[in-house]
């Protein structure tokens, strides 16, 4: 395994709202290895954005980090002062957002939005910065960058704007790139292009990427590992193969089976119910109320992470030896079959 790029331990974050305290993240822990792409998947409200915003230090004023650690280069980012966080942002950890139509400042030309990062974060002189900005735009697939560098955001399409946003993120030469639902607002064709771009960049620059999405289909193309989040916790984490073909947590099953795929047979299955109220998180497993495979203990005590295979963990009581045998859904069974085949073929260790 590669070296650790970032490590999150026991991160617990809450918001103060007028209705009370909202427990947004509840003891989230995961590791991020250099050079990999980790996808974080979950519904809205699962805590995906809060997690990465905690890493970036971009939490809003009414947020409280109650406990936890974010270890980056042997330091705990949560202990950093605002100034220190500013220094890291953009230059070592960069972030891109969901809606390219509103991510760029409409009153500044795209060149200056890239150049300011080069000048202020990498101490480049003006001429150097302009050249590098043109290179970045070229790398990101903007045609005629020398001419278009002085143009304004509204003169570009949505897909192009997202490329520009990526170029801006790259300008700081970061080690880690966080992409918060970068393709959600784009149509399918453009989505594929952006994902290709990210993969290309990762290869060239050996960058580590955290890719957030609520769409498992997108993830298959881009991720090495996947973390599934629900109600402020990670419920399952593993390699792409682990999650796609050997999932253990009923929520992951739900996500996979509600994703229409042309090859695997079966009905569309939607997870019934709604996400839980994080103002008063229930005792036990938050997913229990929507879990048709819930055990009595799920309503009483939260499940620990069980190790399924090396580097594949799932937090479900179903993995406990005392748990009864259950009938795994059809579509999941088929995936298990796929998994076995992959092992036999030697694709997976």
């Amino acid at each position, binding site marked *: 395994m590669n070296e650790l790029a970032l490590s999150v331990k026991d991160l617990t974050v809450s918001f103060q709202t007028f209705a009370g305290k909202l427990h947004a993240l509840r003891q989230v822990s995961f590791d991020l290895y250099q050079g990999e792409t980790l996808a974080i998947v979950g519904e809205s409200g699962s805590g995906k954005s809060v997690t990465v915003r905690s890493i970036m230090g971009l939490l809003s004023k009414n947020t409280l980090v109650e406990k936890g650690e974010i270890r980056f280069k042997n330091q705990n980012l949560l202990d950093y002062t605002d100034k220190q966080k500013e220094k890291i942002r953009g230059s070592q950890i960069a972030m891109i957002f969901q809606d390219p139509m509103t991510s760029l400042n409409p009153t500044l030309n795209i060149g200056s939005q890239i150049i300011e990062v080069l000048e202020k974060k990498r101490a480049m002189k003006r001429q150097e910065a302009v050249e590098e900005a043109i290179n970045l735009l070229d790398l990101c697939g903007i045609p005629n960058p020398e001419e278009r560098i002085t143009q304004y955001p509204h003169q570009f399409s949505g897909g192009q704007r997202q490329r520009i946003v990526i170029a801006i993120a790259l300008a700081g030469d970061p080690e880690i790139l966080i992409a918060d639902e970068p393709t959600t607002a784009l149509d399918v064709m453009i989505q594929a292009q952006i994902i290709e771009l990210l993969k290309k960049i990762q290869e060239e620059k050996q960058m580590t990427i955290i890719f957030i999405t609520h769409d498992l289909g997108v993830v298959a193309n881009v991720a090495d590992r996947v973390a599934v989040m629900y109600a402020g916790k990670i419920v399952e984490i593993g390699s792409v193969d682990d999650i796609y073909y050997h999932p253990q947590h009923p929520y992951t099953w739900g996500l996979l089976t509600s994703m229409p795929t042309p090859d695997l047979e079966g009905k569309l299955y939607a997870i019934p119910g709604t996400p839980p109220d994080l103002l008063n998180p229930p005792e036990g497993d938050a997913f229990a*109320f929507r879990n048709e495979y819930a055990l009595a203990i799920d309503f009483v005590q939260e499940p620990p992470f069980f190790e399924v295979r090396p580097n594949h963990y799932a937090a479900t009581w179903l993995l406990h030896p005392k748990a009864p045998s259950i009938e795994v859904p059809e579509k999941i069974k088929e995936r298990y079959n796929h998994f076995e085949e992959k092992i036999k073929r030697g694709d997976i260790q």
Partner: protein
Amino acid sequence: MSHTEIAKTSYNEQILNQTSQLDDNLFTLDNRMKSAKNEEIIAPTLNFFQDSWRRLKKNKGAMISFFVIILILIISIFAPFFAPHDPNAQNPAWSNLPPKIPGLEHLSWFNGMSVNRGGALIDSYEQASVPEGVYYYLGTDSLGRDLLSRIIYGTRISLIVAFAAALINLVFGITYGIISGWVGGRVDSFMQRVLEILSGIPNLVIVVLMLLVMRPGLVSIIITIALTSWITMSRVVRAQTIRLKQQEYVLAAEVLGQPVYKIMLKHILPNMMGLIIVQVMFALPSAIFFESFLSFIGIGIPAPNASLGTLISDGYKTFRFLPHLMWYPAAVISIIMLSFNLLADGLRDAFDPKMKE
């Protein structure tokens, strides 16, 4: 197929050890899916006005203003009960008396004393042979009229002008705006062009020209002031009408054959109430200001009626010797306008559901 056997690793051993005490019974399937608890609504639902009122109550400035305004309204409506003297009764013998309030005479402001020409502090009331027990709380003006009573009646007039002007503004603005917004098309374009032309004319010009032709009087001033602010109201109303016109429940009502005026009354107007109230609240201090401005330069309410503006203007004339004749009405008008402005700001924030809490 059953679930996967978990790997026999030291990690898992540790977990199993920690959880060894768990009762076997806990590991049975529990079919509590879709429990009622999940569907429970977290906070009680409030309708729009209740919700806004709740938000407004948090704004201390607005709430204080609200009560101040109610107080002022009560005093001016029941002016005859509150005013100690007749505001127009002239008593030349008792002119220019300083303020004197029984019970507060130890304060130099309210002791009825003033400095005479020789520089000595004398009891002006005694000097003017004012009988015992007759007090002028805020003093008298150059014609011997009680300032406090004048202020109370003056407030009444200023408020009447303001509310009347706001009312006309409201009716005219809403009508114009709703028609323009609802009918749309070329009629709307035309009506808006007219508005654009009219808004190129400075308010000052409108007011002065109108008052030149119609001699200054209560009615003419009210109409003039109303003319200066109806345009904003109509624009706001039009924008809302256009927005609401496209809502589904309006389309549904149309399809069901409801006559237009009913749709307006039942669906469109109520949804604009918040906006309209805020606009009116903002129009009031503007009207009060304009009226006092006109009175100050001399083309306001004619004698013998006196508005706050007239009082300030009169007070200004004798400012060097009797500053209190100007300060008190000025203070009153400032408080009134401040209260309306604060309340209007508070209402605007309270009615806007997008405001961050």
